[in-house]
Every structure is written in structure tokens, then in C-alpha cells.
């Protein structure tokens, strides 16, 4: 039995990747002796030494750029950004360089790096610590964006992200880091970086979620089952490229779609899911699409954070409305 929390699964995936491939490096603020502020890199310094577990100065744009240089030289750097709010400083490097090196040089120079960070709210963290920046990264051609929502998926997706020949952004939901344990064997395989996971089958409505919203979607589905409403719950997991086939197939069966996102509504990734269905699944829809999302407001400080965050109640209500549509 190797039960792991999500953060332990991340840690185990990093350790395994480092053990299997000497090109894998871990870098970032406090990733060494401290083992990362969430302990995602705990024990790696002791095991792999300071040549492979590198504490950096405090400079996020620089960290991303540094990883690009390392990756161009054949390393597989996994750079940690300590909190989600500090990822925005990396967008310039990720968009103008990491995502483009391959195409700009017509394949001569590539960028097999991972940029990983905790993301999302729900843990009463300080300002700028509870961001959901996935839509911005998902808009960038040349990047992959992954958001695991369980220990096992975190493990498999992280292995795949590190092995991927292109830059991958991995957003780990902070609220799920220690939310539950599940069996994650050491030899679990990498998971594909272009597949959504159907976590629960149902024929009345499709609920699409990712990251910290997945458990909320599942508990909404649970509650709705008692009311006789069967929800199919899809964890998108990889947001770019998007596994629209799985979503479309589900909506074709259910005819109803509720999308859940923690990020502010407007121009969030939920819009892309809705758009794909409006383009290629429209005729299956028996009710308007619903998005349950963060408001278009700044994420409040902890006192009002729970009011802001979508939860099972709001999701269930949206599904009910969808069902009620005649």
C-alpha cells in the first residue's frame, strides 16, 4: 500500500522522474532545504543533491527564463513557482519564448520544461495566493496546461509532463494538496496529456470541471443522484490541448452541460468548453449551457473567500435549472 496525498504524489512523481532520468532538475524558491513551502520537493535535495535541486533567487520571470535555457541544453527542468499569483510574471517568458522556441527555430532548439505551481483558493491564504491563471496559459500556442485533481492523476500527469518534449504548465490545486489520500503505486504509469477523465457516468447532465472544483462537482453529482438526476462528471485534467471529444460524446448522451470553473467567469477556460459545444455539439443541447464560475471580481481576502468560490450547492442548483428547462 502506498497511499499518498496529492502533494505527496507530486513529490513522488518528481523523485521518480529524477531517479529515472538524470536530465531532470528541480528548481525554484525554497525547493531545497525547505522542501518547498508546501513540501512538494521535500527530500529531493537530500536524495539528489544541490546539482539537481536548486534553490533560486527570488525572481519568477528569471526562473522561467532560466528553465528555458536549461531545457534548450537538454535538461528537463521542473521549475516551481511558489504561489499562483506570482505566475503572471512568467507569462512573458512562457509565451514569447518557452512556447515558441521549437517553431521559431524550426525544431532546432526545443524546450522540454515544466512550470508547476499551486493554484486556486480555499485555504484562507494571503492576497495573491489563490489565483486560477489557467485560461491565460491555455491561450498560448505551444504550451500544454495540466490541472490534476486527485493524487493518482497528479502522479501520472506529472510524470507525463516531465517526459513531454514541449513546455507544460502544471497547476496543482492547493486545496486538494492534503484533502485526501489514495493508493498511488510507485510504478503507476504516466497518464496521457490529451485526455479528460470521466469520473462518474450519468445520463441526465454533463458536468465539466477541473482542479479544485472536481470534488465539488462530484459531491453535487452525489446530491443530485438522490434526487434522481444522473450527472456525468468529467475532469478535464489537461486544459490544453482540450479533449473536446470526450465532452462532446458526453453531451451527445446527456443533452445538458454545466461547466464549473473557479477562475473569474469572463474569458475563462469554461468559455472555451462552452464554445466547442456550441460549435460541434449544439444540436445535442436540450438546455442552455450553464457556467458556474468565480465572479468577475477580484478574489476576496479569506473572510469572503468562501462566498466567492463555486461549491457543490451552486453546481447542483445550476444542474437543476438545466434540468428544469423545458
Amino acid at each position, binding site marked *: 500500500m502506498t497511499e499518498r496525498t496529492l502533494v505527496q504524489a507530486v513529490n513522488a512523481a518528481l523523485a521518480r522522474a529524477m531517479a529515472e532520468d538524470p536530465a531532470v532538475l528541480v528548481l525554484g524558491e525554497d525547493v531545497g532545504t525547505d522542501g518547498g513551502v508546501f513540501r512538494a520537493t521535500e527530500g529531493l535535495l537530500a536524495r539528489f543533491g544541490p546539482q539537481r535541486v536548486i534553490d533560486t533567487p527570488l525572481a519568477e520571470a528569471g526562473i522561467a527564463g532560466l528553465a528555458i535555457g536549461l531545457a534548450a541544453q537538454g535538461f528537463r527542468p521542473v521549475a516551481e513557482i511558489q504561489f499562483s499569483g506570482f505566475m503572471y*510574471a512568467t507569462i512573458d517568458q512562457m509565451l514569447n519564448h518557452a512556447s515558441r522556441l521549437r517553431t521559431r527555430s524550426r525544431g532546432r532548439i526545443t524546450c522540454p520544461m515544466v512550470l508547476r505551481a499551486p493554484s486556486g483558493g480555499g485555504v484562507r491564504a494571503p*492576497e495573491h495566493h489563490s489565483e486560477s491563471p489557467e485560461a491565460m496559459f491555455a491561450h498560448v500556442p505551444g504550451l500544454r496546461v495540466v490541472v490534476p485533481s486527485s493524487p493518482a492523476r497528479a502522479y501520472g500527469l506529472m510524470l507525463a509532463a516531465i517526459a513531454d518534449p514541449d513546455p507544460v504548465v502544471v497547476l496543482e490545486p492547493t486545496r486538494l494538496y492534503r484533502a485526501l489520500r489514495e493508493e498511488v503505486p510507485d510504478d503507476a504509469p504516466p497518464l496521457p496529456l490529451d485526455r479528460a477523465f470521466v469520473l462518474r457516468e450519468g445520463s441526465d447532465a454533463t458536468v465539466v470541471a477541473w482542479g479544485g472544483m472536481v470534488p465539488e462537482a462530484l459531491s453535487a453529482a452525489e446530491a443530485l443522484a438522490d434526487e434522481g438526476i444522473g450527472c456525468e462528471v468529467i475532469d478535464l485534467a489537461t486544459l490544453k490541448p482540450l479533449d473536446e471529444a470526450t465532452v462532446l460524446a458526453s453531451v451527445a448522451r446527456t443533452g445538458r452541460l454545466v461547466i464549473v470553473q473557479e477562475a473569474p467567469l469572463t474569458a475563462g477556460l469554461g468559455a472555451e468548453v462552452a464554445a466547442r459545444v456550441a460549435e460541434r455539439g449544439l444540436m445535442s443541447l436540450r438546455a442552455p449551457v450553464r457556467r458556474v464560475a468565480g465572479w468577475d471580481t477580484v478574489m476576496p481576502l479569506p473572510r469572503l473567500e468562501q462566498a466567492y468560490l463555486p461549491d457543490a450547492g451552486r453546481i447542483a442548483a445550476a444542474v437543476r435549472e438545466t434540468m428544469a428547462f423545458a
Partner: protein
Amino acid sequence: MDSVAARFEILRRRHLAPDGTACGPWPAFAQDPAALAAMYRAMVRTRAFDQKAVALQRTGRLGTFASSLGQEAVGVGIGAAMRAEDVLVPSFREQGTQLLRGVTMRELLLYWGGDERGSDFAGPRQDFPVCVPVGSQAPHAAGIALAMRLRGEARAVVCVMGDGATSKGDVAEAIDFAGVWSLPLVFVVDNNQWAISVPRRAQTAAETLAQKAVAGGIAALQVDGNDVIAVRDAMEEALARARSGGGATLIEAVTYRLADHTTADDARRYRDDAEVSVHWHEEPVARLRTWLTAAGAWSKAEEDALLAACREEVQQAETDYLATPPQAVASVFDFTYAALPAELARQKAEAVP
């Protein structure tokens, strides 16, 4: 053939030695023991506040909090030198300065308790709120200082940051702006030797942090950051220069973080207690008390009264803080824009029917 293109010298200032004895001639303000006693009181008050905040966090009544234990001379030295009309652009460990400038303990607790109203302080209305993204406040300070310069005002801006912040590009850009426009701006690097678990030497190979100023052609000074007299003296000099059009200064105040990084941190994971103990011998509060006591300017009775007053003040702040009624959810919507756009009004109506 090589010739010399430029030369730089970084000076280090100290007025009060770690053993509480004076070194060198003192600045005018320090001739008055009452002025020193006032700074002493402010440091003790800061420490009392920090202790209360940590206690509230430990008992689940406050969010993550960053204590300034051991760094009180920096906060108080800055606050003592600033004028009311100057503007403070703090990082997140500047409660010492904020308290001196009139932010109330209740407001600070509200902010750290996760309530935006804590940043709507009644006191220094132009001071910026706490800045969590390290170093990102530095360009704001440059903008505020440029505003003052454009209006020809004799005011100045003080931008405080940690040692870790000096690695951030934002800070370098702001230092450059400050040099180009001779801005009325004082950058203070509150060098407590650690950026969470990353020690000063792993943050930069620069021998001093003061020399970050050289890159932008602004004045530089290193001070003993556990010597409140030196901090205030350096600040007064730099602020006078700033206000009179002489340009910007970067002051590195060398101190030590005696506390964990924040209440979310356990510093024993990455540094020895032995290292910390050494630094307890240099801490600023006892240092000034030793001098004041030796000078006959501070008595046991005064000390007891001060501690009692601080206890009472922080207790009252706690009570007021805990009694503050919560904000309405509507507040989340109402301050996003000056006027609520239609789409946000719809969301608000859904959220708070």
C-alpha cells in the same frame, strides 16, 4: 591600456554598538534622550503587536502573519524619520512603520485577518497597502515619487522591501527610474538575512545589498539595522536629499529575522537555533534599552508602565478587531469598478439576491 572609468564606495553607518554603547558622534536628534526613549517605546509597541498577532494566528483568529521580531529598529527608524505628508510603500513586514504612521492595530489585524477594510486605513490616506508580491511595489513607489516631482512638492516616498526582493527585476527597473528622474524616493532594503529559507548569500553574490543602487546611479548606504539611531539618521539624510531635489537613495539596513518567516513557516527546517541565538545578542530593543538605562533615561518603572500600556493596547485592538462586524458579500462587487458594469450587476444580483 586600462584606465579607471568609475569608482564607488559603499559606506556603513552605526551609532549604537551591539553592547549598547555609543560609537562616533551622534546626529542632532539623538542628543535628546527623550527622542530616543520615544523610539524605544515604538519598538516595544511593535514587538507587542507582533506577539499578539502571532498569538491570534496560533489560535485560529488571524491569517498567515509575518512578524518583525528583531527588525523593529528598521520599521521604527523609518517611521521616525518620515513626515506625515510623505508616502510609505511597504512590503508585508512593515507594521513597525505603519503603526508609527498612524495605521491602527485594529486595521492591521483586520487586513491580516482577511478583511480588505484593513487597508482602508483612516491614518496615512496616501500610503499604499501591504504588498505581498515581492518587489512589485517598487515601480509604484517610483510613480508616486514622479508625481511629487512633477508637482514640485517637497515630499518623498519610502519604499521598503526585503533582501530577497532585491533579486526581482521590478526592483531593478524602479531603481533605474529613480536615477533617471532624480526621484524623491528612498528604497530601504530590510535585510533580515533570509528570504524564507534562502540565505542572503544564496540570493546574490553582491557583497552588500546597498550596491544594488550602483546599477541605477543612485546614492547608497548600508546601516546597522539593529541600531535605530543609525537607521533614523540615514533615513533623515536620504529623505532630506530626496525632498530637496537631490535624488534617490537606497539604504540597506542589516538586521536579522528572529522569527519564523511567517506563521506558516517553521524556520528550524533550514536554520540552526544556534545561529538564531547569536543574533539575539544584537537585537535592537535590548540594545537601545541598555543605552537608555546607562544614560539614566530609562527606569524599571517606565519599562513596567510601557509593557502594561502595550499589553492594554494590543488587548483593546484584539477586542475591537474581533468585534468588527463582517463585510457584506456585496462589497466584493462594489469596489471592482467605480460603477458596476451590467454584467457584474447580473452576477451580483445572482450572488446577493
